[in-house]
């Protein structure tokens, strides 16, 4: 099968990658670009561990064919850091002990990031709806919701 050349802007870095049609965006991020912060979980869009921001929206990278991502702007958890400093969301997750085993954390951060881009100071219900597609099997949801809410209250959305 023919490989396809795609261009991606990932965390503001340009990449040109030759992909096989049956590779997913998740495969490319983890295995070609070495961005292993994005996790491989259920592979069917149920767990949200692979969530990245694609053209401003949270998506399951396990269910996006790499060729379909051609030309898109992607942000992964690695793109949250600013000049070597934690993003306010990352700091808040630490402050609230919102990281247990840590596997869901990158996806949670991405869903939370999109929420705060779209809505300043979201309600608790709004936060729960925004992370509804992200499973935490340690069940540490309360701390995660509080961590996101705290950042929303302080208005540190970038």
């Amino acid at each position, binding site marked *: *099968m*023919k490989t*396809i050349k795609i261009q991606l802007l990932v965390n503001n870095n340009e990449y040109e990658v030759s992909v*096989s*049609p*049956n590779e*997913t965006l998740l495969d490319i991020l983890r295995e070609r670009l070495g961005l292993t912060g994005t996790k491989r979980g259920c*592979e*069917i*869009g*149920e767990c*949200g561990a692979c*969530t990245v921001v694609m053209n401003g*929206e*949270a*998506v*399951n990278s*396990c*269910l*996006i*064919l790499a*060729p*379909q991502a051609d030309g898109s702007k992607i942000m992964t958890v690695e793109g949250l850091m600013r000049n070597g400093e934690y993003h306010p969301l990352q700091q808040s997750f630490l402050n609230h002990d919102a990281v247990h085993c840590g596997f869901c954390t990158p996806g949670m951060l991405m*869903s939370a990031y999109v929420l705060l881009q779209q809505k300043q100071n979201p309600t608790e219900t709004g936060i729960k*709806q*925004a992370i*509804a*597609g992200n499973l935490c099997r340690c069940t540490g949801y309360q701390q995660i919701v509080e961590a996101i809410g705290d950042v929303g209250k302080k208005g540190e959305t970038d």
Partner: protein
Amino acid sequence: MNNFTYFQPKTLQEAGEMFGKSWHETTALAGGTDLLGLMKDDIEAPRNVVNLKSLPGLNRISYQPGKGLKIGALTSIAKIASHSDINKRYPVLAQAAKQVASPQLRNVGTIGGNICQRPRCWYFRGDFHCLRKGGDICYAVDGKNKYHCVIGGGPCFIVHPSDMAVALLALDAKLTVYSGGKNKTVAIGDFFVLPEKNVRRENILLPGEIVVDIRIQELNNNTKSGYVKFAERGVWDFAVVSVAAVIQKNGNALKKGRVVLGGVAPAPWFEKKISKKLSGLIPSEKNLDEIMKTALVDAEPLAMNEYKLPLAKNLMKRLIGELTA
């Protein structure tokens, strides 16, 4: 996932011509949230995949007062869920969209793909060569059939998984389908097929036919609509039973209405008897209880799913009651 050749057509004609005679050979990709799952599980292993998202202009919503609503087939479910005219004029559609899957999947999944998604029957999705995959047996008949259909089944007993289809049938939507060089109009009620007619497919689309847009008539100001979904989880779950209703009022009585059930049949199920009895009905609790006695009378539940009957009746009663209160 098997490998395949990936096509990016620029026009409908080009797209249509990429398909052969069989779905197994070439399949259509929209959002991909269902297709990728099917391909990862080797339920589908096409040699060619046609990316419909390369077709321009099919992801728009337009609402014109007096004329109605038109939704391009590649419009995302999230866009429908948040569209202000749809929320205002067609709440049934917005409510259904908001309850589809998860936020991530709604951002990617399209309305065209949503109504064309394959069933969630665990035998179909699992390692069973069932009727729908060309085998000889429906394993649900003697197997675990808690989530299977209670009406319209046989010889296969799937339920149709789409939330949007249930709302669209209640709205009596029309589909524009590209077919062999021209567009044709298909009423949504004629789009889905029961297993007795075709046990391998859930709709009438032939290879090379493509849903282009969905049109919904203007509803008058006395019309109320809504969607209620019962699922075991709030997110990423399919309806155990769902109900969509579009009801026109006339003073204290109801003028007419359409009630459609999801999760009970292999296709979204228009409740003909209940819909008919809404005409002229005073929607009191007693009257609603009375008409519910006639609902799903032809149902033939399997060993583990009789619970869907009272569930469906109670959900219909609740939704009609709320819409007409």
